[in-house]
C-alpha cells in the first residue's frame, strides 16, 4: 500500500510535462518545467523518509536517535538551487523573446528552419 506514495512524484512529473507541451505562453511553459522538476524533490525526499525518525540535525537530540536520510536532503538542496537558477535564466530568455518577437505564444513563434 505504502508503495503508492512513490507514484506522487511520477504524477507531478507528468503534470509538468503536459503543461509544457500544451502551453500557450512561454512563461507558463518555464513554470511547468519547474513543476516537472519539483517531482525530483518529492521523489528524493520520499526515498529518504524513515518512519518515526526526525530531522538529521543533532544539535538538540541524542546521537542515537533515528533520523531520516540526510543525503537526499543535501541532494534536494542542490537540486533546488539548480532549479531556481535555470528558471531565472529561462525567464530572462523569455523576456527577450517577448521583446524581439512581440509574442510569448509558442504557436505564434515562427520555425527556426529557414
Amino acid at each position, binding site marked *: 500500500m*505504502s*508503495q503508492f*506514495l*512513490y*507514484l506522487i512524484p*511520477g504524477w507531478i*512529473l*507528468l503534470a509538468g*510535462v*503536459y503543461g509544457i*507541451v*500544451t502551453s500557450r505562453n512561454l512563461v507558463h511553459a518555464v513554470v511547468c518545467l519547474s513543476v516537472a522538476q519539483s517531482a525530483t524533490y518529492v521523489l528524493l525526499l*520520499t*526515498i*529518504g*523518509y*524513515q*518512519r518515526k525518525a526526525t*530531522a*538529521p*540535525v*543533532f*544539535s538538540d537530540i541524542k*546521537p542515537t536517535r*533515528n*533520523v*531520516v*536520510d*540526510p*543525503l*537526499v*536532503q*543535501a541532494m534536494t*538542496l*542542490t537540486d*533546488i*538551487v*539548480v532549479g531556481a*537558477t*535555470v528558471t*531565472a*535564466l529561462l*525567464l*530572462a*530568455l523569455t*523576456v*527577450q523573446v517577448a*521583446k524581439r518577437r512581440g509574442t510569448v505564444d509558442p*504557436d505564434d513563434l515562427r520555425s527556426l528552419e529557414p
Partner: protein
Amino acid sequence: MSRRARLLVLAFGGCGLALLFALAAFRLPDFGGTSHPYGQRTLPNAIAHHTPNVISSINFDQRAFDTLGEELILMASALAAVLILRTVRAEQEDAAGKHAYGPAQVFDALRITGYALLPVTIMTGVYIVAHGYLSPGGGFQGGVVLGSAIHLVYLSGDYPALARIRPIPMFEAGEALAAGAFVALALAFAGQVTAMNAVVGLEVGSAVVLTLAKFFEQALLVRKDT
C-alpha cells in the same frame, strides 16, 4: 506539427513514461523503511567533525565538490542575467528618463512596515547563515533571505532608493569573489563549514540582488514603452 499530432505523440510518451515510472515505483524499497546505507555512513562523520547539522556537513564537507558545482551554476546564471538582459543602445536612449521615477505613492503604513522589517529581515538572514552548521539553515537559505531583504525598500515604493543601495558593479565583484573563495575552500580546506556558509551566503545574496536588478531594469523599460 499540428496541435492534434503533438497531443498524440504526448499521449504515447506520457502513457509510456507513466507505465515505466509505475513499474519502477513498485520495486522500490518499502516507503519509510530503515535501510539508508549512505545516509547512515554520513552521520558519524558529521558528528566527528562537530557539524551537528548533517546536511551542512554533507554539503560543505563530505560532498563539498557538489556544492562547488552548484555555486558556479549560481554565478553562471547571475552572469547570464547580466548578459542576456543587457540593454542595447537604442533601449538605453528610450529609457534615459527611467531614474526620474520618484518614490511611488503608497500608504504610510506600508512604507513604515517595509522600513521596519528591513533590519529584522537582515538580522534573520545573518542568523540563518551563521547558525547553518548547528541548526536547519545555512548559506543558501540565509543568502536568499539577505538578498530579498533589501527589496523591502522597493516594496515600500521607493525604487530610486533601492537603486542607490545596490551598486551593480560592487555586487558583481562581490558575488564573483565569494564564488572564488568557495572554490579555494572546497578544494583545499573542505570542512570549514562556518566560513563556507558565510561565503555561500554572500554569493547567494549577491546573485539574487543582481538577477532581480536586471529583471527590474527590463520591467521598467517595458512599463515605459506602454
